[in-house]
C-alpha cells in the first residue's frame, strides 16, 4: 500500500516537473498557443485535461494489461488507448448533458479540445511504454494534467508581458512565444539537473 502511494506521488511529481508535457515533450503546444488568450479558458482547459488524463489513465491501464496479454503491437495498443480517451470523453459529455445541460453548451468546445489532444494521448502512451503500475499510471496522468496547467499559466503570463514589450515586427505573435517557451524549456532542463551534451 505504502509502496503504491509512494509510486503515485513520485510519478505525479515526475510528470509535473521533470517530464513536463509542454516544456520537455512539447505536447499540446498548438492548443497552448490557441487557448492562452484568456485566463478563464486556460483554467477550464487545464482542469478538463487533468480530469481527462486521470480518468483515461485508469481505463488505459486495464487496456494495456489485456492488450499486452493478447500480444498486440505498439501501434494497435495506441489505437486501444485512443478508444479509452474517446469512451471517457463520450461518457463525460453524456453525464454533462444529463446533469448540467447549460454548462455543457458553454464547455463543449473546451471539452472536445482537451480530450483529443497530444497531452492526454501522449501521457497514456508514455505510461504504457514504461509499464507503470496502476497507481503509477494514474499518478502520471494526474501529474501531466497539473503540469500542463502550470506551464500554461507561465506561457499566459509571458505572453501578456511580451504583448507590452517592444518586439520586432516579424517576431510578434507566434515566433516570440515559441522562443519564450524554448528559453523556459532550457531553464527547466537545467533546473532539474541536466547538463547540455557536448
Amino acid at each position, binding site marked *: 500500500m505504502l509502496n503504491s502511494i509512494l509510486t503515485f506521488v513520485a510519478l505525479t511529481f515526475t510528470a509535473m516537473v521533470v517530464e513536463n508535457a509542454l*516544456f*520537455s*515533450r*512539447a*505536447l*499540446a*503546444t*498548438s*492548443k497552448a*498557443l*490557441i487557448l492562452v488568450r484568456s485566463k478563464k479558458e486556460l483554467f477550464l482547459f487545464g482542469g478538463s485535461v487533468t480530469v481527462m488524463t486521470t480518468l483515461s489513465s485508469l481505463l488505459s491501464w486495464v487496456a494495456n494489461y489485456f492488450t499486452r496479454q493478447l500480444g498486440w503491437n*505498439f*501501434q*494497435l495498443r*495506441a*489505437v486501444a488507448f*485512443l*478508444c479509452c480517451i*474517446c469512451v471517457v*470523453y*463520450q461518457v463525460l*459529455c453524456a453525464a454533462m448533458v444529463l446533469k448540467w445541460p447549460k454548462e455543457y453548451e458553454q464547455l*463543449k468546445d473546451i471539452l*472536445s479540445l482537451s480530450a*483529443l*489532444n*497530444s497531452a492526454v*494521448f*501522449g501521457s497514456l*502512451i*508514455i505510461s504504457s*511504454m514504461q509499464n507503470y503500475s496502476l497507481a503509477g499510471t494514474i499518478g502520471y496522468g494526474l501529474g501531466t494534467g497539473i503540469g500542463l496547467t502550470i506551464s500554461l499559466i507561465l506561457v499566459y503570463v509571458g505572453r501578456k508581458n511580451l504583448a507590452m514589450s517592444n518586439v*520586432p*515586427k*516579424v*517576431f510578434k*505573435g*507566434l*515566433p*516570440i*512565444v*515559441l*522562443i519564450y*517557451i*524554448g*528559453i523556459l*524549456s*532550457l531553464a527547466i*532542463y537545467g533546473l532539474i539537473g541536466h547538463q*547540455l*551534451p*557536448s
Partner: protein
Amino acid sequence: MKKSLKNYREAMSRTRGIFAQNPVLIGGLALPIAIMGTTSLMNAVALSIAAFATIVPLMLVASTAGKYIPLNLRRTCYVLLAAAILCGVSYPIGKISPGIFDSLGIYYSLMAVNTILLYRTETYAHHASPLAAVVDGLRNSLGFSLVICVMAILREVVGKGTLWGRPVQTAIVLPSVLLPFFGFIFLGMCCAGAKGLSHLMKSRLIRDKLRGNMQGE
C-alpha cells in the same frame, strides 16, 4: 498597383497551405510533431508519409460524410479513423529503417490527434466539395512536410553530423540542437523568417510597381 496586388494575392492563394498560410509556420498547427519529430531526416520523412496518409483521406471523409455524423461524435470518429490508418501505414514506414519507431517514440502515434487534421476538417472540409477538400489536404500536408524536412535536415546535420544516417562533413557538431528547447527556438526563428519573407515580398512588389508608374509618367 491594384492589378499587381491582385496578381500577388492570386499567387498566394495558389500556394495556400504550402508557402502562404503554412499550417506550421503561420497557423501554429502540429507544433509538437514539428518540434520533437525533426531530429533526423528519416523521422521527418516517416512523419510526412503519415501526414499525407491521414490528412488527405480524412479531408475527403469529412467533406462527403461529415454532415451525416453527429457534431459531438465527429472529432472522435476522425481521430479513430486516423489511428486506424496510421496502424496500416506503419508497415511501409517500418521499411525506412528498422529502428524508426524507437526513434520517433510517441510522436508517430500522435499524428492521429494532430491539429492540422482536426482544424482543417472542422473549418474547411465540411463546407467544401470533395475535390477541394482533397486538394486542401494535399497542400497542407505538403506545407507541413516541407517545414519538417527542412528543419530535420538542419538539425540532423548540425546536431549529429549525419544526413539520412550517413556521416557528412560539418565544421561543428552541437548535440544540444536535438533537444526540445532548441526545437522551440528554431521553429520560432523559422516562423519569424516566413513572416519577414512575406512582408518583404509584399513591400518589394509595391515598390517596384510604384517605380514603374513613376518612370511611365
